[in-house]
């Protein structure tokens, strides 16, 4: 099986740009990725694009062809929707198409415009990633759903709000060097604990912000990279997808993410590595508790022990496995349709030594990107390795 190379990456700054359309954001990210890749636009065989709430935020459906147009590419285009895992799923399909020889060059990305809806409107729009009949109509919000998981985690395995606060503080610290991050400011454990409660036990600073932004990567086949002498040292060597029942209450566990475990196991097996080989990871920390559940699902921490990983320094930049060196969703921002591809772009850049935080993972060869949809009814995991 031929490997899939990351030839170029492009991110807009994540933040509050309520007046910028998704097509404008994606035009910027895709232009950056294409320029970074040295791949001519005419060579792009397909555009795969993730977006979640475009109908609600921009009154815009059918975004595939619109985004190809914004990227200046005439290739056929498809939109993927899997809530906050939308572009991660698009990327997985790009990998599959490249592996099976259907394509040699794929432009894959995502964008989301959220802040124009305001906090109330965006909260309502995000909520529809849950089961409308049995969860949303009972008043469940997304912070509420993750709060239910946090309470269940504390009940089952122990831990408290202060443990979670260390995760927020770590990810904010990591974002200080990331000029694309929404928040380039430090947050202390005390700041997190003193913030207003959103949905107990989670406070304002346990949550990622509402964000506008876009991400894009240019993926190419190994043959194409060789033929065109591209500078593309990082390959995507593993991909996996997991699924679970839609409503949280229908799952076996309220404080575990089996869909992410399934996706991770598939991706590890695909890449022929194990969790012990992982040097760094970008995981889906939409809320602080989500990082805990992700680490445990990926076997980077034992079940019940992920809660102390940040506090005890195992996931900090100087720890064994630095997690979310980009700042994560928590500090970098979470324009939901762009997030999955942005994580892969960060891992690729970290491994290539081109990231401001690459110094913390010098010599690293293996990274993982974990992207979750909803309360993890959808999950997609990718393994990236330095191969050249």
């Amino acid at each position: 099986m031929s490997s899939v190379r990351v030839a170029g990456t492009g991110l807009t700054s994540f933040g509050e740009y309520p007046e910028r359309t998704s097509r404008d954001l994606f035009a910027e990210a895709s232009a950056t990725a294409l320029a970074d890749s040295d791949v001519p636009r005419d060579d792009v065989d397909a555009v795969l694009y993730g977006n979640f709430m475009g109908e609600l935020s921009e009154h815009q459906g059918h975004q595939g062809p619109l985004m190809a147009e914004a990227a200046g590419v005439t290739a056929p285009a498809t939109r993927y929707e899997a809530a906050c895992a939308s572009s991660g799923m698009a990327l997985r399909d790009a990998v599959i198409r490249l592996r099976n020889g259907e394509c040699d060059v794929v432009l894959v990305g995502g964008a989301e415009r959220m802040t124009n809806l305001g906090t109330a409107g965006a909260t309502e729009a995000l909520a529809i990633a849950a089961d409308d009949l049995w969860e949303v109509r009972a008043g469940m919000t997304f912070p509420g759903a993750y709060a239910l998981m946090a309470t269940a985690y504390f009940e089952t395995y122990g831990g408290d709000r202060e443990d979670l606060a260390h995760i927020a503080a770590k990810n904010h610290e990591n974002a200080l060097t990331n000029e694309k991050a929404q928040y380039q400011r430090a947050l202390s454990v005390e700041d997190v604990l003193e913030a207003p409660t959103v949905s107990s036990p989670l406070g304002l600073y346990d949550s990622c912000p509402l964000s506008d932004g876009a991400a894009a990567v240019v993926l190419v086949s190994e043959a194409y990279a060789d033929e065109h002498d591209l500078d593309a040292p990082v390959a995507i060597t593993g991909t996996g997808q997991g699924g679970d029942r839609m409503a949280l209450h229908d799952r076996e566990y309220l404080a575990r993410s089996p869909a992410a475990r399934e996706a991770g196991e598939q991706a590890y097996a695909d890449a022929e590595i194990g969790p012990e080989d992982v040097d760094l990871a970008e995981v889906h920390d939409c809320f602080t508790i989500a990082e805990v559940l992700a680490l445990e699902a990926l076997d980077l921490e034992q079940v019940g022990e992920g809660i102390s990983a940040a506090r005890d320094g195992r996931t900090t930049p100087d720890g064994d496995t630095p997690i979310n060196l980009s700042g994560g969703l928590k500090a970098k921002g979470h324009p939901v349709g762009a997030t999955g591809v942005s994580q892969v772009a960060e891992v690729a850049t970290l491994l290539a030594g081109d990231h401001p935080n690459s110094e913390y993972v010098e010599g690293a060869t293996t990274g993982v990107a974990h992207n979750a949809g909803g309360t993890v009814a959808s999950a997609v995991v990718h393994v990236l390795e330095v191969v050249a």
Partner: protein
Amino acid sequence: MSENTESDGERTRDAGFDDWLDAARANEAYSLVCEAGHHSLPPRRVCPECGSTDLTEEPLPETGEVETVTVTHVATPSFEADAPYATAIADFGPVRLTGQVVEVDPETVEPGLAVEIAVTTSETSGKRIVGFRPVQ
């Protein structure tokens, strides 16, 4: 539609779900069960566990137990006037349900609390919602 059937204003009924709310309001809440014994909630034509299409209704236990809870302070516009409110997942034996815990100070709701189903209405929208009431 029977005379005692409630509806949410102008909204079209959702077959299966609104029927379940009607039943729950009449203290006849149920789950769907297949011949293999897997339980699920309507609307459903197929058992999500095994694919069986032979589903029958079975009454839920009268009492459930709160497994996890949160008090939501920042609500969506649809629940603005309801906040702060306690949302819980309660275990009713063969199935769990998500609902708002009513007739109690939200901050006092903890895992282990015994509850019964109490279909209630949103203060914001007047629409019906699945609720739980503590039992003595």
